[in-house]
């Protein structure tokens, strides 16, 4: 952090650069959703768009990782995600079981590569 930042500047930046640009989309949603019911075509379409954007975020975090996760090779990350999905499918569709299987696969793969 540069010297011009005083004690309050990070909090001001939090509101101006973090809170407002993030919150504006929630407020748009609130304004637009008035008068719509859950079977409206625009609501069904919105659900599909939200799901696809979320899937895009997931793909980016796994394929184009940053920080400590980037130190684990791409092949290990994608294989671990696939193992987690298989674990989820085979264990009564439990997301929790799938997360455990995927994490175990990532740690094992990462350990084998780094070793």
């Amino acid at each position, binding site marked *: 952090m540069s010297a011009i930042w005083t004690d309050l500047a990070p909090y001001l930046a*939090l509101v101006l650069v973090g809170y407002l640009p993030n919150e504006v989309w929630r407020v748009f949603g609130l304004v637009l959703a008035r008068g719509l019911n859950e079977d409206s075509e625009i609501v069904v379409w919105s659900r599909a768009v939200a799901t696809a954007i979320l899937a895009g975020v997931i793909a980016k975090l796994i394929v184009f990782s940053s920080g*400590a996760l980037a130190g684990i090779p791409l092949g290990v990350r994608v294989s671990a995600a696939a193992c987690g999905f298989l674990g989820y499918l085979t264990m009564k569709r439990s997301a929790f079981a799938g997360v455990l299987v995927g994490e175990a696969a990532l740690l094992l793969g990462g350990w084998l590569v780094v070793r």
Partner: protein
Amino acid sequence: MPPPATFSSSTAAFLGGMKSALASVFFLVLAGTYIGMGALAHDFGFSPWWLALSTVLVWAAPAQVILISALGADSALIEAAIAVTLSAIRLFPMVVALLPLLRGEGTRLRDLLLPTHFTSVSMWVESIRLLPGVPRERRIAFCNGLAVGYMSTAASFGFVGYYLAAELPPLFAGALLFLTPLSFLLSTARNAKAMMDKLALVLGLLLGTILTATNVQLDLLWTGIGGGTLAYIVHRLREAAA
């Protein structure tokens, strides 16, 4: 696990929501994600209270990661704001899809302000799954309880991560960061009961990878609009054929 069909009061529904939050897979996910976030905030020189406030005000993990890394690296403020707002576009269709589930007769706009602010991936995925089993007049209280449960979990583990920072070996730090995409993937898959939702998930994974790899601007926006619209069209065509 669906919640009980009835709640005797709004307070009971609120507490029921909090209980669902603490019992869901997202409890562990948020704990892991915010331990990682606490470590990040520590590395970039923010105070743990700043992080806690950002969790309450921003309440979106991707936006918070962008904010911390951009501000901490002294990037241009406008650049950071644009990156944050792009990451937040996904909240817009989530709010549009969620609010009709919450609104009943006599619901005032101000009753919807808190659920609107609380909308995030974890809360949205669990609300869409659980709300149909909750009586309509208790849904807002249930939803607020769910979000307060998640938010306090996230804020608490931010402090844990802050003080654990730099103690974790790289492999375990990487495994913590992996919790977010893995759990989002599996919970979205579990949530996708209709064919349209499954298709939107698969198309989003593919488009997100392709558009990022080819450096397309506003990649997430196009992933959502392209993948979501295609899934919606297929859903309409199948309905028309049936």
